């Protein structure tokens, strides 16, 4: 089982590499247009050694961390309020559903106008991209809590505060973790796009800059770095759901 978990992904990655290698060899495109795996590997090493890759990755991760963190600490409480208080739900739900489908990228012109050039507009876009999914998933999770649990709470005279800490928060934790996983992926998608416009650093900027310099090998290094970091972020979020006190979510319907 464990072997399969390691071997099977290795197989799929190897096949991808093989196809890539074959295409570069037989397509007739030059290395400048479609660099080979080996060339990208060498460039990868180069960018690691000269520190460029790390610098840009840290810049991107910094923006994602701030934007995502703000979205989470504001989105989860708002979602809980929305799920618990009918009047707030009626007041805000339509507004949220209206704003939600507007792609964060559509906000780029306004974000740049309002916040200028730099980290702030990028963080704002990441915040927008994660905030709405967090609010909506949280409030849906709160509404889905079995009425039985609230009856138990009333039966044992739990205070409003205790209902929040002993019923609502633990009950929604499994869905919130899933939402965190989805949101961080979206945030990571958006940071690259945001960096292509508003800033002078980050993996998105690195890709754009490399394109302007016609260094497709660097472009690919940037893409691969994005993929690897995305994989790691997802892994971190996924391991949250392995925490023992949330394990019930995987077994209880």
């Amino acid at each position: 089982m464990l072997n399969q978990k390691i071997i099977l992904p290795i197989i799929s990655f190897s096949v991808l590499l093989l196809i890539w290698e074959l295409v570069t060899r037989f397509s007739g495109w030059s290395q400048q247009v479609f660099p080979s795996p080996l060339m990208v590997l060498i460039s990868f090493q180069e960018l690691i050694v000269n520190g460029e890759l790390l610098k840009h990755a840290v810049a991107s991760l910094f923006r994602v961390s701030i934007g995502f963190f703000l979205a989470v600490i504001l989105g989860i409480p708002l979602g809980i309020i929305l799920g618990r208080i009918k009047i707030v739900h009626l007041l805000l739900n339509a507004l949220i559903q209206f704003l939600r489908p507007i792609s964060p990228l559509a906000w780029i012109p306004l974000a740049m106008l309002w916040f200028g050039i730099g980290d702030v507009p990028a963080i704002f876009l990441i915040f927008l991209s994660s905030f709405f999914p967090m609010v909506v998933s949280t409030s849906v999770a709160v509404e889905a809590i079995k009425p039985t649990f609230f009856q138990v709470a009333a039966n044992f005279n739990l205070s409003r505060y205790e209902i929040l800490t002993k019923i609502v928060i633990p009950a929604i934790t499994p869905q919130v973790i899933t939402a965190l996983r989805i949101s961080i992926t979206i945030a990571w998608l958006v940071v690259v796009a945001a960096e292509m416009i508003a800033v002078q650093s980050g993996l998105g900027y690195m890709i754009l800059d490399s394109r302007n310099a016609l260094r497709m090998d660097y472009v690919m290094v940037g893409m691969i770095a994005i993929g690897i970091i995305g994989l790691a972020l997802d892994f971190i979020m996924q391991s949250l759901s392995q925490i023992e006190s949330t394990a019930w979510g995987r077994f209880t319907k």
Partner: protein
Amino acid sequence: MSHIKIKNLQKSYIDRRRVSRSKTKDNSKASQGIAILNDINLEFEKGEVVCILGPSGCGKSTLLRMIAGFEKPSAGEVLVNNKPVTGPHADSIFVFQHSGLLPWMTVWENVELGLRHLEPVARKVAIQEHIDLVELTRFEHLYPYQLSGGMQRRAELARGIAVNPDTLIMDEPFSGLDFLTHMKIREEVVNMHELIKKTTLIVTHDIDDALIMGDKIIVLSGRPATVKLEKNLNFGRPRNLAENLELRELRDELFFMLGVSYAV
């Protein structure tokens, strides 16, 4: 004075389809709703075990929920110690038809729910005592999903008894258990009752449960439910159905009343 008194209790649920279709001016509750319970009058004494039988969907759970204060009657009232029930309270603990354990808490934390106000040391002792009482020692730190169905029932029972309620309200506490576990837990409930003597209301589908446990048997009719039979059983416990002629006759009668023409 009786412990629990149910006076002219009525319950109907609003039929959404009918309300939206006919825009009649008649807004009285009865005309808009589906009547579930119809004029129920009952009295339960302190310490009694009351077993409630009735066809599926007739409103047994609804009746219990109103006694527990989870729902309001459409008319009539429920009095506990002569005071109308206004809402749920730790004096009447409800044991749910489908588990009421909180799945994100261990057995220990679930039992702790009703003992929150105690000092840490006393709390620990009390939690352990109640877990031991239902023979879940060494399973304290498991989550409900890690327990068998029978163990879950026992854990919920321990949680309920731990708050020392005046009334235990159990909605089909043995449903979904295998035959032997059913017997075992029923025996435990009987023993527990001998020990703590709490007023205990039990809804069950099993006529033998009622005959073995009940000081009083209530049979409800189909919807809208009325009280079809109210019978006191003045026998001690434990009881032996095979040897008690009177109980066996009552058993046949109950089977007949619930629509089965011969007892199995």
